[in-house]
């Protein structure tokens, strides 16, 4: 099980690295989907099968498909990819990347220096998660529903006004 965890983690890190360095947005999205699928496997190994399913259905399914549709709709073309390659020169990314590497080193030191917790995995079933979600966390669920409604209204408003303007321009 540990070997499986290491392999899934390695694939996740590699795919995420590829995601942030690609110049073609579609390639980056496909690498991000690979990364999310391997993180779902990590969730499964950590004893959270319900979260693994949600990760695949909502993240790798819904959110990434939304990204893919937007990239297809924008259709920026080859010139934008060339420009993207120009923006990725080492002079621009060495500074921020080294700062992030320092942060990563500190975090790994903190997590690695404590006594390593090696214990059997306790699987939380979907029934337990649901009972906790609708029990002590009911207020959070209500707040999340309001947040999602606000997101829906905002996305609808932003998309609709622009299309109305386009319609006027088209008729004029």
């Amino acid at each position, binding site marked *: 099980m*540990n070997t499986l965890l290491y392999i899934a983690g390695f694939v996740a890190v590699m795919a995420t690295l590829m995601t942030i360095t690609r110049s073609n947005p579609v390639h980056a999205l496909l690498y991000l989907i690979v*990364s999310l699928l391997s993180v779902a496997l990590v969730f499964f190994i950590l004893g959270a099968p319900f979260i693994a399913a949600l990760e695949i259905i909502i993240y790798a399914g819904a959110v990434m498909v939304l990204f893919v549709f937007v990239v297809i709709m924008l259709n920026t073309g080859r010139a934008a990819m060339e420009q993207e390659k120009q923006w990725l020169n080492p002079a621009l990314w060495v500074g921020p990347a080294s700062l992030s590497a320092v942060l990563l080193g500190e975090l790994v030191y903190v997590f*690695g220096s404590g006594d390593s917790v090696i214990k059997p995995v306790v699987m939380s079933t979907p029934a*337990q998660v649901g009972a906790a979600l609708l029990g002590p966390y009911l207020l959070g669920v209500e707040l999340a529903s309001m947040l999602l409604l606000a997101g829906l209204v905002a996305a609808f408003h932003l*998309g609709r006004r622009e299309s109305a303007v386009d319609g006027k321009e088209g008729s004029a």
Partner: protein
Amino acid sequence: MSVISLNIGLILAATLFSIGLTGVLIRRNIIFILMSVEIMLNAAGLAFVAGGARWGSPDGQVMFIFILAVAAAEVSVGLALVLLMFRKFGSLDADLIGKTGADRDAGEIT
């Protein structure tokens, strides 16, 4: 049940978060910035689930579901703004939008 080292989950979350942070800092294309924010949110959720596995309670998974809701709302509004921005400016450059009208015109001429 199998026995695993639970620090690995936290270290993986820290690694993914750092990569996402690097992506936010180094990219100028707004779509890549949004994707990196998704990576960071996912890494935060992984840390919650690893913590929940450490204590054997479903609370970490409940927090992951909340993070999922926040990410879904964020990405829907963010992508609507990206579409609006691309129609208005014809570009996905995040730096271009930060400039005022005069600066932008000057930048295009030179």
